[in-house]
Every structure is written in C-alpha cells, then in structure tokens.
C-alpha cells in the first residue's frame, strides 16, 4: 500500500486587497510592488492534506498555474510539508479566467497524476473570492465534490473516505462517505496551518522540489487554455462609493431609544408605520 496521493492546487494571492490600488485609467489592479503569496485559505487546504498524509501515509503534491515567479510561493508549500510542487507555467496559459484555469488544472492533474486519490482545494481565494475552481475541476473530471470539509477519515483498503463538513450558518456537522478519488474543498476556518520548516525550505531549494512544466509537456488544447479558453469579459469596473452615513447616536433609556429609532426610520421612509 502506497498510502494516499493527495494533490493540492494552490494560487498566488495579493496579501490584502486594501493594499492594492486600481489604476484610475485602465481599471487594472496596480500590482507594482505587491508581493504575491500563497492564498491564505490554500494553507488550510494543505494542512488538511498533510494531516491525512501524517495519518495514512502517501504523499502530498501541490500544483499551481502561475508565472515563473510562482516558484516562491510553491516553495512555501514544500516548507509546510508538501513532498513536491509543480508550477504550470507557459505564456499560453496567460489571461485565463476561472474556466480556462480549471481546465488547465484538471487536465494537468489527470496527465501528471492519473492515480490520485484526493484533490484538495482551499475554500476560495482572498483576492478574487469566486470559489469556482473546485466545482469546475470536479465537473471537468466528472468526480464527486464535497465542500466546507473540516476533517476526513480514510479506509485505505476499500479506497473509501468519510468527509466531515461544517455548515457555518446552521452550526451542524455532516459526514459523507465516498469512493475515492474525489474533490474536496476545505472550510477556511478549519485546519490552522502548520509553520514553515527550515529544513524543508532548504531541501526545496537544494533538491529542486519545485518543478516547472510548460505546455510543450502537457499538450493541452489551445482552444481551452489562456485567454482563448476564457469566455469571461470584464465589461466595467467601478469603485464603490462609500455611503455617507448619518451616524446619530442616542444616549439614554433603551425603551426610549427603541422608540426614537423607530420614529426616525419611519421619518426616513425605511419602514412603514
């Protein structure tokens, strides 16, 4: 038994959106000087995967479609404990929307690791927050998809996995059983990530654990990748204007406060008497 083969697709994100400005003319993100880092929620996904590896053996492989500079944040995943990392990088992949990206990830995983057991995603990215990727990859690969996962147990001999998911709004846990392989996305407030290890970071560098692959090797359909494979059109970007609030504060008896609030809301036409 070789244990589990777990693939964790990851993405670079800008650290916090407030530090990024929009170019007033082109409306593009001004990425100048903004350091790319591992999407924070992908760390929780990686932790989820590493815990399964710790328990059941096998290996954890991270994969990302990114420009060559993506090597740095993939080294972080090795630092956390991934066994190896693959950087899918080619000009042909540039300009991809979520559809073309999910195609690239799905087909790359299929080609590179046909025998994988789990594809583990973060819940969403902090900078674009679409959460499209795991569902779209599940669709390309025609595999089951479970999201908001917080924990899992595996029966290796039967290739079965029991995934526990947490539904935040309801405050309930559910457990589902699947035959592997499946696609999992991990609840963002679970599985706090482990620290980056010095030895692993050194090994990532000296043993070249981050490998780059281009489309000459992958041979993915040109029509389905990059800008050509991306039907999304950004028609317009608008800055949301901050709403001026009236900021009135009532001090005093709670009953009177409630009455005062209601009177004012009626006066403003927010509620009808």
């Amino acid at each position, binding site marked *: 038994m070789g244990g589990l083969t777990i693939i964790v697709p990851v993405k670079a994100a800008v650290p916090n959106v407030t530090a990024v400005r929009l170019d007033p003319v082109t409306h593009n993100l001004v990425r100048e*000087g903004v*350091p790319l*880092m591992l999407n924070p929620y992908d760390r929780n996904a990686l932790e989820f995967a590493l815990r399964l590896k710790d328990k059941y053996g096998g290996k954890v492989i991270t994969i990302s479609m990114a420009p060559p500079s993506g090597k*740095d944040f993939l*080294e*972080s995943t090795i*630092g956390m404990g991934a066994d190896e990392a693959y950087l899918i990088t080619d000009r042909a992949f540039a300009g991809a929307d979520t559809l073309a990206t999910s195609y690239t990830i799905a087909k790359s995983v299929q080609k590179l690791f046909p025998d994988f057991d789990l594809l583990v995603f973060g819940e969403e990215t902090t900078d674009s927050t679409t959460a499209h990727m795991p569902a779209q990859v599940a669709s390309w690969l025609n595999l089951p998809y479970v999201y908001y996962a917080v924990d899992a147990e595996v029966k290796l001999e039967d290739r079965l996995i029991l995934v526990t998911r947490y539904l935040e709004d309801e405050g309930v846990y559910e457990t589902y059983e699947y035959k592997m392989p499946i696609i999992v996305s991990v609840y963002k407030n679970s599985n706090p990530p482990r*620290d*980056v*290890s*010095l*030895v692993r*970071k*050194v*090994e*990532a*560098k*000296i043993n070249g654990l981050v490998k780059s692959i281009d489309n000459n090797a992958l041979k993915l359909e040109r029509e389905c990748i990059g800008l050509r494979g991306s039907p999304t059109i950004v028609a317009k970007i608008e800055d949301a204007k901050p709403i001026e609030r009236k900021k009135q504060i009532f001090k005093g008896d709670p009953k009177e406060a409630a009455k005062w609030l209601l009177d004012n809301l009626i006066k403003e036409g927010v509620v009808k008497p």
Partner: protein
Amino acid sequence: MGLKFDVTVVGAGPAGLTAAQQLASKGFKVLVIERGKKPGSKNVFGGRIYAHVLDKLYPEYVKEAPVERWVRRERITMMTEDSWTTLDFETTKVEHRSFTAYLTNFVEWLDKKAESAGAVVVSEVPVDKLIIKDGKVVGVRAGNDEIYSDVTIIAEGINRLVLERSGLAPKLSPELVALGVKEVIKLSREEINERFNLDDDEGMAWVLAGYPTHYLPGGAFIYTNKEAITLGIVLYLSYGYQLDIPINELIEEFRLHPMIKRIVKGGQLLEYSAHLTPVAGVNASPPSLYGDGYLVTGDAAGFLLHLGIIIRGVDFAMESGRLAAEAVVKAHDSGKYDKESLSIYGKLLEESFVLRELKTFRNAHKVLIEPRLYSDYVRMINTMLKRYFEVDGTPRKLGSTLLETKGNLTLLDLAKDAIRVVMNL
C-alpha cells in the same frame, strides 16, 4: 545530524547578503536564513544609500541597482511651530555619491546577487537561537529544525533576538536606539521636481530638527524618490517617556505643519512603516563582535553611523558583511573557526572605515542626545532671525539680537555646546 553548510548567515539584509555573496562566489557552501516572506519584506530605513561601498562590490550598480534618485541637494532645517531656518546645499554636479532608494527593492537586488553567486537563500523562517556546543557556535535552531555549519554570521538586524537568546548580547536598552516612523507618499514625478527644484533623476535629502519631535532629541527626514517622497520622524527612545502625544500622531503633526503640508499636497499614502535604528554606534555593540564559530555584522553589531545630519547604515552594514566574509576565508585558510582565527575580523574592521569612523565619532551620541540642541537652539535661531528681519525702526545688530533671544542659555552654555558639537561631529 542533518543538513550541514560551510557558513550560515542569519538575516538576508544588506550585511548578510553581502557576506553570503562574497563567500558563495569563493566556493563556500552558504545558507542565508530570512524571517520575511522574501528578502527585503521586513526591511525599513530612512531613504538614502551612500554608494562608495558599491564601487568596490558591484561596480555595475550604477546601471543595475534600484536607484530612485541621485542626491544633488541637501537641506538642514531648524523648525518651530511657525517658522524655520534652513541651510540648503546644492551642487550642479551629480557625483553619484549617494542615492535615494527603497530598501525593500535594494535588498531584493542584493539577494539576486547572492543567489546567482550560489548562496542558498531561504525565507519565511525566523531563527530562534544559536546551537552552542562546548562554547562554540555550531549551527542554528528554528522551531524543531537544526542546521549545522562551521561558522555562523549573525546579520539579524537591530532587534538582535538570536544574540540575546544565545547569551551573546545583553538586552537592548532605550539609550542605544531611536524609533523611526515613516510614511511613503505618492506624488507625481513633475510635482516632486517642481516642489523640490530638481531634475528627473536628481534627489534631495532633508533633515529637520525641533518641532518634528516636539523639541526632543531626534528629528525628521524627507527624501525624494522618483514618484514618491518618504517622510519620517526619528525619536531617541531614551526621551520617548517625555513625549506629550502618541508617536503616531507626532508624525502627523509634522506632516500637517504648514510648511510640510504644501509639500505633500495632493499626495497619496502608500505605506506606513516603523523600525528601530542604532544611535550609539560601537557603544551598542555586543560584548564581542566575534567568537568561537560566529561573527556579528550590520545593525546587530551597532554598525550605523548616526551624526544627526548624516545617517549611514547600509554602507556600514555591507562593508561589515564583506569583511566578515574576508575573515571567514582567512580563518578557513588557517583551518580553524575558533575565536582566535576569527579575530582577524576585528582587525579588518579596525582598518576599515567601519570602526575607524565609528570610533572617531564614539561620543557623537552623547552630544546629539543633548536636549538643548533640539529645543533652545532651534527656538533661538528662529527667534533671532525673525527679530533681525523684523524691520520696525529699532536699530538691531546680529550680536545684540542673539543676546536678546538666547533665553535661558548662558553664553558659557553656547560656547560649551559649540565646542562639543565641533569636537565630536
């Protein structure tokens, strides 16, 4: 025993990366460990680099280094609430002596140099402490991981936690450091050129004293970059206790001073940062700059020359890194990395500008910490000139105006302080 390198460098800043590049290019197996997400992401400085060390190390820097502007204009201002007196130095020749820069970018550039020389630079890992066996430093520890090496170069910066935790330096005290708080403000190239009377690649370095720190020892600075200015205040921490408003408001009061307000008009804040800086030179050095299996460089060694008007950190850091590398090579040739073999580092420092200049200005901080310089004198000169220029029919000579405005200062104070400043700076 795990991983082993010839040399481990703690900290990928100007000192550490220079040492690493020098050693890697001579065939040493070098590891640099950085706590930031990438080299440069935790570095902050005022804004200017003196280029003389680069002539030796990287002569190609004029084309390659991330230079913002070459300093052609220097200003020193004594500032009160409502007036200021400025000494303004300009030269028509841009002599490539010093340039403004972002330390983040500059360190990234040094990192490329070190990595292309063959050094292994890993980031995202703070080193916790040194591994010391039988009194000899044999490696570093970070979390549960250990890495061994023949010699460790400590370039961890001003907050020398590794040295402290390893028992090699006492805790920093407020007298040894100043706090710098900085705002990076975006302005257009044209606005900067116009407001500071500069051409495209020309820069200005400006220090101000008095009002910016509410007359406490310290000062303010403004440096021009290509499309931003950096504006900051520096406060000697031993006087921090006397501050009458929070430090984050102090920098705002400076920015909102009527004279400064017009300079930053229409600007946009890009970043708000803070960092400590050594102000006591060799007086802040750890008890020993080298020992069995280790060397100390850069800010961690107190290698920053602070003369109030001239502040030099990066060139001292880089030179000390270069000399540490030279010492390691020499010790390697002798076959030992014990304290005796590494003592060559001390000699090299003494012969270089690092210790020659720091020792020349050994007492500078004792003069600069004199509160009168930032309060009485700043007020006096402004009041004196104001009176002198106020023409109201009363005959005034400079000398008598001085006597009128010197306030509580005695002539003896003036003379003594003048001598102290002249002798020590």
